[in-house]
Each structure stands twice: as structure tokens, then as C-alpha cells.
């Protein structure tokens, strides 16, 4: 059971959270303008990286808010926690960060 830093409530046990999958996949503004392939990319295609992963969590049984984590999927160590809408932070351990 992970210990997850909620940007609002601090470190909380994983049981209070619901996982929300890969972060920073915005719903297209005009889905009808997308090809089937592009729509399938949005709906289904995921990075599934082995290493740092920016992902959504919701503190469902806490403050109720969504936020993002960068977590290393090879160790489950959490590298960063930030609010929804903020960019993926730049981290030494995470080459995919904001840069």
C-alpha cells in the first residue's frame, strides 16, 4: 500500500485514492475533427513506461481532488506530486519532465 502525497492533504495511504491512469492526456476540444486513428490514440494508446510515469490520482476518500504524481514504475517511488493543470515538473530523475 503506497503512501501518496496529496497536494492538499499531505501523505495519505493509497486506500484513500483512486488511480486515474496516464496524466496530461487532454480530451480533444473537437473530437469530431479527429480521424479514427487519432481518436483511438486519445482513447486507448498509453505510454506504459518502465520508469518515471506522470499519472492521475484522485483523493477520492479524502479531499476529493484529482492531482498528478510522477512515479517510477520500476520502484513505485514517488518523484513528484502536483496539482491538476500544472505542468509535469522538471526532475533530475525524470528526463520526460517539463523540458
Amino acid at each position, binding site marked *: 500500500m*503506497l503512501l501518496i502525497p496529496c497536494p492538499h492533504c499531505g501523505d495519505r495511504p493509497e486506500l484513500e485514492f483512486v488511480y486515474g491512469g496516464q496524466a496530461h492526456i487532454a480530451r480533444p476540444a473537437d473530437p469530431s475533427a479527429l480521424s*479514427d486513428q487519432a481518436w483511438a490514440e486519445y*482513447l486507448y494508446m498509453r505510454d506504459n513506461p518502465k520508469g518515471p510515469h506522470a499519472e492521475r490520482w*484522485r483523493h477520492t476518500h479524502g479531499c*476529493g481532488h484529482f492531482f498528478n504524481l510522477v512515479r517510477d514504475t520500476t520502484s513505485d517511488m514517488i518523484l513528484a506530486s502536483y496539482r491538476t493543470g500544472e505542468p509535469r515538473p522538471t526532475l533530475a530523475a525524470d528526463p520526460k519532465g517539463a523540458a
Partner: protein
Amino acid sequence: MSAPYRTEAGGRIDRSRTLNFTFDGARMQGVQGDTLASALLANGVHLMGRSFKYHRPRGVLSAGSDEPNALVAVRRDDARYTPNLRATEVELYEGLQAESQNRWPSLRLDVGASARLLAPFLAAGFYYKTFMWPRKAWDRFYEPFIRAAAGLGKAPTQADPDRYASRYAHCDVLVIGSGPAGLAAALTAAASGARVMLCDEQAELGGSLLTDQGALIDGQPTHAWLADALSTLAALPNVTLLPRTAAFGYFAHNLIGLNQRLTEHLPTAQATGVRERMWSVRATEVAICAGALERPLVFPGNDRPGVLLAGAARTYLNRYGVTPGRRVAIVAGCDGAYRTALDLHAAGVTLAVIADVRPAADGPLLRAARAAGLIVRAGMTVTGTGGARRVTSVSLAPVRADGSVGGVSETIPCDAVLMSGGYTPSVHLFSQSRGKVVWDDALKTYVPGASVERERSAGACRGSFGLAAALADGANAGAEAARAAGFDVAPKTFAAEATEASADSVIGALPQPASTKTGEAFVDWQNDVTVKDLHLAAREGFRSIEHIKRYTTTGMATDQGKTSNLNALGVVSHALGAPMAEIGLTTFRMPYTPVTFGSLAGVSRGDLFEPVRATAIHDWAVEHGAVFEDVGAWKRARYFPKAGEDMHAAVARECLAVRSACGIFDASTLGKIELIGPDAAVFMNRMYVNAWTKLSVGKCRYGLLLGEDGFIVDDGVVGRIAEDRFHITTTTGGAARVLAKMEDYLQTEWPELKVWATSTTEQWAVIALQGPKARLILEGLVESVDLSPEALPHMSVVEARICGVTTRLFRVSFSGELGFEVNVPAEYGRAVWEAIWAAGRPHGLLPYGTEAMHVLRAEKGFIIVGQETDGTVTPDDVGLGWAIGKAKPDFVGKRSLARPAMSAPNRKQLVGIFTDDPALVLEDGVQIVAAPGQPTPKRLIGHITSSYPSAALGRSLALALVQGGRARMGETLYAATAEGDVPVRVTAPVFYDPDGARVNG
């Protein structure tokens, strides 16, 4: 009669408290403080078990949780029967009944031991190579035979009545292990004010200090220092001491699982409380002080009862006052064995010989042994042991400088052989924490490398052997942990005076003359894995230690390789000619020691297994004889049978009541969401397929919700309470899902929208009144609201008062009849229900349940999400294309509906189905085919989604999803039932009142 192998004095036992117990029915006596193993040894019983594969007679090997041989079952009664317990861990209590296992008819005469005669043919992995012909014989003959021979103890046969508990706990510093390192760590950390938990798997805290004698700490004898240390810790409010508590698993982010045994050591009459408790401890910092495990030596006959670990023998002597024999041979692979020799000598036990398998051993302990007049023969190997169910001799031969074994074996009579190859650091928990172990050339063992979690190892578990080193290491670890957890720490030092041992040790098989058969040199005792088996695996091309483990099963017994892993590695290293560091270790998996299922399950049983959700009207339904069904966590009344009625009769009666008079139905479980804000309608437009902008206040609309993949996920009536306020209903099972989905879009996709969703599912009790007399019944109860069709037409909602309380009164129908849904605050639910019930009874009002509700809606062709839909169904598939707001540019799922597959001509569409035989009610899920009599696999074109006998129609009806169904009206298709293909007619999916007149009352 006092036990023959009990010493005159000494040990941490209470000799004044005699305890009676039985082993395989034989009555014996031990004393308070004994384990079953020590009590049996005191009675001269070494033979305690039989091995897994060859059923070889086995004695106790160790004195702790690493024991592979002495597995027993303990019976309190038929329901409290526990197999596979280690006699070394079973604490003796008055009246304890223990049984040996894996033998028939008795431990001494075991028929299964004839497997030993077949041993040459039953080498590692033999079962992969045979039992293949004839094909059918595996299931019927070979496998049952293998299974009957395998297994150890017997499963309990009755439900376990004992209680189990679970608890979350938090601390600044968790210290695992209460030996010298653990105590030093705990004392140091606790002095800083940090919250400290100290756990140890043993009944008494103290670890090796419970066995060690002769050393001094801070000038005190170890036992005195231990008592002081424990009383110091026990007096501190910031310290929790947990004996009988095994740290079994190290999980992500410093969560450690502890299993605490609370009543296993108590006589049955007192063992009434919680049996075991599982702790989930979140520790800021962890100090692992888990000690080290003694390694056996690998030589032929090393599994004979009476052959045991030297350090274990010392524990039996010093802690339990028991000697393993009267004339003892010691085989030393490390200095530690000499401590045993010296203590036994001091206790008056005859030492037949001390054979040191190291060519040039020396050191203070050897010198002390020699000084005591003991004969030490260095550079020896053991070529075998004698005896049947108890060792009677040991055979020794000298090892030449080149490593070959020379000369003639000399056989020395003895009644116990005590061996020690050295100590293996217990890196299990460190490894579970995902730290990588590294090979230490000097220590010839694996030790913890860099940490991943916030932990550190101290003492013997990281190779800091010796009392002084362990104390210093522990104090450092305790200080470092407390500091890392944010506490100011005063350094502590502990002065130790003890004879130190060298790190010199032995791993793998002892050298043997070429003629020696290695088939009886055991590496893994319980699973009967020998040196020969490991060589066979190497010969057959297995290179990875994981493969060798799996092929030979070494390390996979109930001790999980605690005594065997490093020796197996040594043998494999020798066989493959590769250094041990290159071969690597197998993964250490949790649990460190076995954990009771009940403890892991904790309090979660019966009604506490999962919440039982009941509505405000539930008790009324119980009182009126309802039969309930589980829907999610809810209990819903399924039907209300009268005496003698089966479900069909009750449902038919309930349906007719609704069609002819009125029915009352508890719809409280439906999900309800209050959506409020200036952007409420905009949000509804984006979420639901329907158009909401033009829905007037006070009016309702059937809402349909899709996933982004275009498939139906939920539905329900939505009422507009105000311009900026909607009352949304969802399915019972979908309530939480829908709300979560709304929050997701609101927070992450459209944060600019000013609208909020709040669950009101449990705020409202919902009482549905359906039937032509519904208005008549309600009219007398509702204040100041006109219920007439003109004032409150179908699909409208009004805020009113009923029986003096606020209600949201919906004019809706899920039955096709005139209907109302009375929403009242839940704590008034039952009272209002009873008022309506009283008012309605003169009009023929009857309660109905979910089953009648399903029939009524099926008669009208209304879908149920989860029954007509299955996550692969679009609105058009079930004839709900009309609900889609055509002018809307976008809504959740819209884009997916444009994908090619969603408009394929052969999509399944909702239709009605009539069987030719009106009495025939098809089973749910029967498949539809176009042509009868096809061989399998048939071409399936659809399936029945709902099927009922309809009292209103006087015949059966069904709904089905059929490929191209709407173009098949009137066609004859076939239902592929178990009895054969039955002709059916495709019809429109509205069976009753197709014009919808009745809903208007």
C-alpha cells in the same frame, strides 16, 4: 518421572510448573517455558517428523522458525486443528495435543517410507519425464497417486471459530528483531522520544541473548542486562513491545506486515480471545535487526534424527535446560560450534569428538576448547552417520591438502551429532524492501547493499557478527533511524565482553571420497533435495539458480530455504564451476514465515466481509416477508411471497396488482446526484447524450450516459428542479461510478464550468407508486399540490409536502402505468411508506419487488443497464437513438459512435421475442440462430437478454439482441436451448400498451 534429558538447573524455564502434553497420543511432561521441541528432546524424543518426498524419519534440526523437519499438527478440537506447525515454535501448554504428519500408520512405522527404495528412480524432476502414457492415465491414476503421497499435514475439516484482528499502526522507528542489535537500536531510538515499535517472532524478547551465557554487557551478565533493557523499554510510553510478532513482509513505502500470535501459547480454556492480529505498520524509519540463520553441513546421513545444528543445541541447553544427547559429536565448520561444545562440556555432557572440517582452524574459542581438555580434530570430513531412527555413530575421514579425502573412515559412536557451517545473515526483509544484496567475499555470504526504502540493517543480519559489533551496530542504526525521523539523538554505547568468533565458515557439500554416494547428503531437508539432485539439474542444463530451485524444489518447502539456500548455492557453484557471486540468489518473497489466512483476512467475515447496505424501508420489507437479492452491496427486496407462493406466483400477483390497481416499490437504492451551478445545463449537455437546454424547470427527461468508447454505461430519469439545479438518478450499481466520472470531467477537463455534483443517494428514501390508482392513493397524503394530469403530467417533478415532510414528487413510470416516485428525507422514509401503505390498502395496493419491476418494464420494452446492455451496446442498438441530442456538437462518447464498427449492418439490435409455445419461458442468455439444426460451432446471431412469463399478456415474452434485428420483424428464428432449437418470432420490443396510453392514468 522427570524428563531424562533435562539438565539439573539453568535455562529460562519454570521447572516448578509441570505441563502434561501428548505427542501422537503418548503422554509426556514438560515445563512452563518449553517449546514442544524442547519438551520432546527432554523426553529423549528426536524423531518428530517425516520428510515430504521419501518419508525419511527426521529429528528436529533447529530451534526456531527455520525448522524444516519437526512439523506437527496441534489439535485443540476438530475446528481448532492446525497443521504444519514447527515444534520449535509451538509453546507448550497444559493439555497440548500434538500429532506428527505425513506418515501412516505411525511415525515410527511409515509405509510411505518405502518410497526410499525407489529413491534412485525418483530424482529431481522425475515426474516431468514419465506418467505420460496412456494420456488419460494422468488424471485418473498417476496424479491422484502423486497427490496422495504429497502434502504434509491435513487441512482442518471445520470452520475455524476463532477471532482474528487487524490493526493499522504508525511509528517513527520500527525495530525488527530483539537481539543485541535490536535492543541497542530500540534503546537508542526510544531515548530520543521517537515512537518506537520493537517486534520479535519469538515468545521472549532477547534473541541470541536468551542463549548466550558468559558474556558481559556494561559489566552485567547478559541475562541481567537483558532484563534491565526490557524493563527500561517497557516503562517508556513511546515504546511498543511486540513479542510473538513476526515481521513477515516489507511492502512499498515502508509498510511492514507483522503477525502477532496472541493465544496460541495458552491452554485451551484460556485461549478465548483474538487468536492472531495482523499489524500493518507504516514506519517512518526501519531498523532491521533480524540476526542470522545457522547453516547445516552437507554430508551423507546428515538428516538422521539426532543430527542437529550446534547453535540450536546450545539454545536447547541454555534456554530450555535440555541436552540433545549424552555422548555428543560435534562437527564444526565455524568457531560458533565451540561455544556449544564448551557449554555442553560444562553441563557434564560427554563430547565424543569435535571434528573441525576446516583445514587450519584456530582462535580463542578453539583454544578454550582445547584448554578445557576437549579433543579437537581439524581438517576432517564426515563420510556418513549410523543409526535408523536415531543417530548412533558418525564416520570421519581426514581431508588432504589438495581437498581429496584420504584414509579410512573412522566411526565414532555417539547419540547426537551437532553441526554448524556458520551463520547466514537474514537478509530476507531487506531483500523484500527491494534493496539488492551483495556478495561479501570476506564473510563468504550475501549482505545488504544500498537501501531503497528508509531502512538500515544492523547486527548479524548485515554480517556484523559478535556481541560487541552487534550492540554497536544496533546503537548506530537506532540513532540514525531516529535522526532520520526528525529526532535529536544522544549517542549510546554498550560495552561488551565476549569471546569473539572468526568469520571463517563452510558453504556447500563437505568433500567426500569418490565412492561416497551423495544421494543421502541433504541440502533441503523437508523437500528431500540432495547434492545428487542439484548435480542432476546442472547436468540437465539448468543454469539459473531460479531454474535449479524450481526443478529440484530446493528452498521451496515450508521453511522457504532458510537452512538450505546458501548450501544449495554452494553445491551449484561447485557443479557449474562458477563463483557463487555470479550465480546469484533466488528472490526472497514474503512472507518471512507463514502467515495464517485468518490473520490476513482479519475481522472481515460474515456481515463484516463487506458492508450490507439496507434502505430506510428495509425492515418493513423484512417484516412483510420479502425475499432479498444482493445488488452491489445493497439488499433489495426481490419479491414478497405469501404463504405457499413460489417466486413466479408472487411476481405474477405483484405485476397484476400494478396493472390493475397499484403497487408500492422501494426504489431508494437508485443513485441520486444533485447537480447545481450556473453551468449545470451546459455540463449535462456534455455528459449525457440528451439535449438539456430546453428542458423546463419542473420537467424530467430520460438521460442516457455513455463511456467515451460510445457504449452505454448508465441511465436514469433527470429532473430539472431549477434553472441551475438538476436531480439526476442513476442505476443502483452505477451511482458511485457516475459521480466519479462527473468529478473527473469537472475537475480535469472542464474546470471552468461553475457546477458541482453532490451525492444525495442516501439523503432520499424513494417510494415508487405505480398503477392506475396511484393518484387516488397519493392525493390524500400530499399537501397543496395538484396531482392532476394537467398540473403534473407524466415526466414532471414538483417540490411538495407529504405527511408533513418535504418531498420531491416525481411523476414518472418504469412500469408503463400511471406512476409517482415520492422522494422523502431518508429518516422519514419508513413512516411515509407506512402512511402510503395504510392509505393504499383499501385500493388494493401491494408491495412489489425487483423481480416484478423487471417484468413490468420488460412488458414495456424498457432496458435495464447491465441486462440489455453489457458494455458493448450503443444507444442505437437498444433503440434509444432518439434520446441523442442530434444538434449537439459533442458529448461524452459521441465521437466513438462514428467509428466504423458502431454502424456496421450486422450490429445486434433490441427486439421482442415470442416463442411459438406461449407457455415456454426461455432461459436468460439463450442464443439465437437463424437456421435450426446447425452443428457446433453454430452461427450465433443474438441472445435473449430478458425473459419472463407475463401475467398481463398471459404468455411468455422475451427481449433479445439480434443481428439486424429491427429488419427482421415477423421473422422466425430459433432459440438454441439445451433441449434443441426452438422456433421463435421476432416482434417489436414493446409488448404491453404499445401506444403508451396507460401512463397518463
